[in-house]
């Protein structure tokens, strides 16, 4: 893992001192809320419905055990004993007191963490593949490049007041597990015909009010030009992006209004100037960062394959968990374990201090001290010997973390919604809880198969509803919650924005509507090998609409 150098340490320490002073002055009445608000937001502090909320950055979703233990400690000491992992691979604390936040930031800095650039119109935390450095289908680890981008974008003077927030995601495997095409810039690491590493640059993706799938800007940018090309894009965006209307300020709108070709010309012209300058990455620098991310030594442990088969046949619940929650590792004797934070009736993405401590211990003992947070709001142990799976499973079972539901209908992505968020129109969590309770039978979930269900409590789409196979968006109508349903969205490879089914559903109707969609799918799929999204693509919306509404357009 990356370790802070002297520069990182100094800059985080300076920021903690600066913000502590600002909090003290605010509490002493030397600053008004208007003056203070932009300062607190620059440090990840929001004011939500019930309390302040602190959003802590987890760069590209990678954590050490020590860091997770610190997050557990913060939740226990300064909050209400739990934290919420978000769709941006960050963690949010829902109940800190303003007066405690300087101390929390001080504690975070002890483990090389902070809350800088988790809010505001700057380059946000760079996200990445949660299986990076471990996945069997990976051609290069994206995290070193995410780290290079993190260093470059931290407190970047030119880009600290962009027209709007700016999100970058990087992947380096055959499967895009970071939804790069719904980011302002999506980077896909690849090799050209000579074997040289570089990036396909996608630009202008995003969700929110105007969802768009990113367009391919350039098929191959050599790795040494990563920062020059990224700078060229953001510089052009900073120049032309609209500042008069925040709903039209993202780069996706600029591309939509100006046209990709014209912008490409300008970006390429800017790149031609920057290309040979100081932003060019020397190979030695790339190698130095890469060294932090080398795969840990994984001893061969082939003897366990047989034992694992035996253990699986002996314990059906364990077998189900291995089947759903363990993915292929590039080393055949190892697996990647996804720890579901989606128990039946639970809050997607929430983990208690006790659970975080348990997971940190497991990572330390069994996963080379490494952990990941996925944008699906789960935790990942990236390097687990197959022989250790049973002891890990038993430990997770004892702490309520053994749900065997990764990629199934109860593995719901949901934003905090109206239970916490000041911008929300409707609740997300309660809908997620009801759906997971409705589909709590594992057999039924397996019958439905691979599916992604996403819920957002407002059009800002933090719950990625636009790219859920089934998406649910909460709106407010005449003082009540109303839920719009979308179908056919998809994140990752073959990215697509879902289509709205029609009139929305009340909070009493929405779970039934989801069940109707599922039953319709089950009745028209060609076989149990045809997934929900494949079936939807084959048959289209009409059948689902028919099942959901009567001829007058009312919900049935």
């Amino acid at each position, binding site marked *: 893992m990356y370790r802070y150098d002297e520069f990182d340490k100094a800059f985080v320490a300076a920021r903690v001192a600066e913000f502590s002073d600002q909090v003290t002055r*605010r509490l002493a009445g030397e600053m008004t809320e208007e003056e203070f608000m932009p300062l607190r937001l620059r440090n990840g502090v929001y004011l939500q*419905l*019930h309390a302040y909320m602190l959003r802590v950055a987890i760069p590209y979703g990678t954590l050490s055990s020590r860091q997770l233990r610190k997050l557990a400690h913060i939740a226990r000491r300064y909050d209400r004993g739990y934290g919420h992992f978000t769709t941006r691979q960050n963690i949010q604390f829902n109940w800190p*007191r*303003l007066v405690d936040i300087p101390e929390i930031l001080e504690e975070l800095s002890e483990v090389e963490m902070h809350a800088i650039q988790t809010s505001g119109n700057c380059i946000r935390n760079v996200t990445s593949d949660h299986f990076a450095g471990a996945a069997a289908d990976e051609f290069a680890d994206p995290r070193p490049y995410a780290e290079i981008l993190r260093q470059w974008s931290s407190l970047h003077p030119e880009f600290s007041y962009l027209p709007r927030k700016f999100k970058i995601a990087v992947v380096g495997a055959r499967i895009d597990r970071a939804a790069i095409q719904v980011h302002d810039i999506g980077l896909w690491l690849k090799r050209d015909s000579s074997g040289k590493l570089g990036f396909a640059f996608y630009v202008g993706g995003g969700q929110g009010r105007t969802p768009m799938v990113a367009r391919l800007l350039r098929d191959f940018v050599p790795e040494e030009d990563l920062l020059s090309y990224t700078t060229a894009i953001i510089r052009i965006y900073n120049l032309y992006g609209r500042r008069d209307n925040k709903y039209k300020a993202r780069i996706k709108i600029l591309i939509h209004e100006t046209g990709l070709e014209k912008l490409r010309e300008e970006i390429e012209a800017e790149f031609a100037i920057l290309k040979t300058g100081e932003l060019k990455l020397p190979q030695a620098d790339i190698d130095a960062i890469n060294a932090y991310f080398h795969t840990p030594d994984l001893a061969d442990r082939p003897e366990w394959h047989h034992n694992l088969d035996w253990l699986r046949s002996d314990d059906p619940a364990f077998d189900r968990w291995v089947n759903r929650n363990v993915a292929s590792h590039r080393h055949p004797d190892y697996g990647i374990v996804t720890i579901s934070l989606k128990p039946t009736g*639970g809050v997607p993405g929430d983990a208690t201090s006790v659970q975080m401590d348990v997971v940190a211990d497991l990572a330390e003992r069994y996963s080379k001290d490494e952990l990941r947070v996925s944008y699906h709001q789960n935790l990942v142990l990236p390097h687990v010997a197959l022989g250790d799976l049973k002891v890990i499973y038993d430990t997770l079972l004892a702490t309520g973390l053994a749900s065997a539901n990764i990629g199934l209908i109860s593995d719901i992505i949901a934003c905090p919604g109206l239970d916490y968020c000041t911008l929300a129109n409707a609740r997300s*969590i309660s809908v997620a809880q009801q759906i997971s309770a409705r589909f709590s039978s594992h057999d039924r979930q397996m019958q439905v198969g691979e599916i992604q269900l996403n819920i957002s409590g407002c059009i800002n789409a933090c719950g990625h509803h636009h790219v859920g196979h089934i998406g649910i968006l909460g709106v407010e109508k005449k003082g009540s919650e109303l839920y719009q349903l979308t179908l056919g969205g998809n994140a990752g490879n073959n990215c697509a924005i879902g289509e709205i089914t029609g009139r929305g559903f009340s909070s009493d109707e929405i779970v039934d509507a989801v069940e109707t969609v599922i039953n319709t799918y089950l009745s028209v799929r060609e076989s149990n090998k045809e997934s929900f999204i494949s079936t939807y693509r084959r048959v289209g919306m009409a059948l689902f609409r028919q099942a959901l509404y009567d001829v007058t357009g009312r919900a049935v």
Partner: protein
Amino acid sequence: MSLKILTASRLTDGHPVWYCTDGGWSKEFSNAAVADTSLACLLFERVAKQAIEKNEIVDATLVDVETRDGRLVALRLRERIRANGPTITSYAQNQSI
């Protein structure tokens, strides 16, 4: 006019507070003082301004309420959730999960 109460978030911890009859701010929604005239609303606005200036509270707003069975209830769900906290635990309990 509809009944109104005055709410805000407390500066130190962001906790929702309601302006109450004794002239202070309470963490209990049920203690909220009710304005039923436009003059009373004006008074609430003045109170809010002063409390903001004294750095006791932030984000003060007037909220529509009604009385149901002799109890005050906010019209918007958002305000009811602010008053009663996240709805999450209660759901989990209902489901016995």
